[in-house]
């Protein structure tokens, strides 16, 4: 999902770069404040880890294979601020050294995958952690969060492409979110498998993730954040497909030049396009159902991965660890 150069127009590139810079700056501030000095090298090593991990193939069907993206995994292992820094570093190196993702689109890519994807997915994961206690809940959270992060990032990408006039939103949004809703299943599964393995082998490495130290108010904030992003992701699709039509009507009405670029103005509520309301409802319902189905799968996965792991390894002496 790395957007190359020239797929975004200058104004979108500028706006996304500004948003990304702000978000990364905030994340750096939080990381500097919350991360103990001993963990600083782990950001760099974590970024190298993500890069190397993205090269490990998970075969899907007939020669195709998937791989980990890792935003929510890193957020669950190191915390959301660290995850933003890590994903930013990965994207910067990919862009500069491997021309993977455009330089002018770097801001957009960081925003989509590093901020919206990683943090949005992490918020979703936090909500699941609140629902289900224990390690099964944390694994389920990583699974659901991983899936959600892909869908969110794809939605953001589609909006940016549409705002640039490269592809129409009514095409980009369903296509990209649809594809990534499928790909996201792999991401969720892989993230959950990796997280549960790390939890089994080195549970002490997980203690650094944010959840335990959060105050009640912060938890509520995350829940609200999840609800809002959930709502946006689910409702954006049907609304957005009516935006271009709605805007053209507005443009005709007010005598603007008819450029089909999607601005971020709210669609006029009076313009209920006949026949569209049913579609809106069905699409919204499909979105909610799909998300709930994935959530159920994630919870089942959490149960499945944690239960058999605890029994055989319970009595193993922990003498493997040696300080080199």
């Amino acid at each position, binding site marked *: 999902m790395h957007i190359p150069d020239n797929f975004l127009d200058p104004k979108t590139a500028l706006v996304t770069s500004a948003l990304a810079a702000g978000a990364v700056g905030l994340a750096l501030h939080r990381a500097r404040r919350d991360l103990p000095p001993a963990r600083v*090298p782990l950001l760099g090593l974590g970024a190298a880890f993500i890069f190397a991990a993205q090269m490990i193939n998970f075969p899907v069907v007939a020669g195709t294979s998937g791989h980990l993206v890792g935003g929510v995994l890193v957020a669950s292992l190191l915390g959301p601020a660290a995850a933003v820094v890590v994903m930013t570093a990965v994207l910067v190196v990919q862009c500069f050294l491997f021309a993977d993702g455009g330089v002018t689109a770097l801001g957009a890519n960081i925003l989509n995958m590093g901020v919206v994807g990683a943090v949005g997915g992490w918020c979703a994961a936090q909500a699941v952690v609140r629902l289900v206690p224990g390690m099964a809940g944390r694994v389920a959270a990583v699974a659901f969060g991983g899936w959600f992060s892909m869908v969110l990032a794809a939605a953001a990408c589609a909006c940016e492409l549409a705002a640039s006039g490269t592809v129409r939103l009514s095409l980009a949004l369903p296509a990209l979110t649809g594809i990534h809703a499928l790909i996201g299943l792999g991401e969720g599964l892989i993230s959950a498998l990796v997280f549960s393995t790390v939890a089994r082998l080195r549970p*002490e490495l997980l203690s650094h993730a944010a959840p335990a130290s959060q105050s009640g108010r912060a938890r509520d904030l995350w829940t609200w954040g999840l609800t809002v992003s959930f709502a946006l992701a689910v409702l954006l699709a049907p609304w957005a497909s009516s935006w271009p039509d709605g805007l053209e009507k507005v443009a005709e009405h007010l005598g603007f030049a008819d450029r089909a670029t999607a601005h971020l103005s709210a669609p006029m509520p009076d313009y209920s396009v006949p026949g569209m309301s049913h579609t809106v409802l069905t699409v919204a319902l499909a979105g909610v159902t799909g998300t709930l189905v994935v959530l159920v799968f994630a919870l089942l996965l959490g149960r499945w991965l944690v239960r058999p792991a605890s029994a055989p390894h319970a009595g193993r002496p*922990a*003498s493997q*660890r*040696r*300080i*080199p």
Partner: protein
Amino acid sequence: MTPAIEIRNLRYRYHDGTEALRGVNLRIQPDECVGLLGPNGSGKSTLLLHLNGILPDEGPPEGTVLVFGRPVTPENLPLIRRQVGLLFQDPDDQLFCPTVADDVAFGPQQLGLPEPEIRARVQRALAAVSLEALADRPTHHLSHGEKRRACLAGLLAYEPALLVLDEPTSGLDPRGRREFKSLLRRLPGTKLIATHDLELVVELCPRCILLDEGRVVADGSTVELLNDEPLMLAHGLERPHILLHTHPHPSHVEPRTS
């Protein structure tokens, strides 16, 4: 004379509870070159990490650790770390800067020295290990032997009085070993070398300490210790062939850059 290292009754447990050190006692005088032997898991590396306060990671050590007469406490750490040069087992852990010159300059930079002095020290250190040609090479482009020499240069740049080396010749090919040995032979100051390389110990260290299961089980003349076959075998080592035959290669070989 104040000992370079004095350790009394040092104990240490890993986080999972296993005892790594169970009352280590040793004393090393300045300018001595001492070998530290022991089977895997005997606690050698753990012991070495106590010498500059990296272990224990929380709180004071259980026992006494004195470096040049000073206890290893948070107040003394800056000075102690200036005096102790620790060569880590994996050179990749130690060479964390982008280029060789950057990495060798790290130590002097932490001392707050002025730029010209730092540059001069980097030059001298690289010359001492014959790596001047590779000063601007990225650290990930070096061979294993070059990495080890670069790590040593990084220590020499801040001129520590005590060199502590953890398995300095492991993973080196025979030529690399010979070159590194002749390098070490030329270095002044106190040296404590933890190693499995028994030939190295015989050639460089008149004195040896044998560690097993977190305790010092023998401490004395290298030749005597290593000739004691039952002792060696009892502690996971063996009598090295060098004590039985003459070494076929001359031991002072000038290191070459590859």
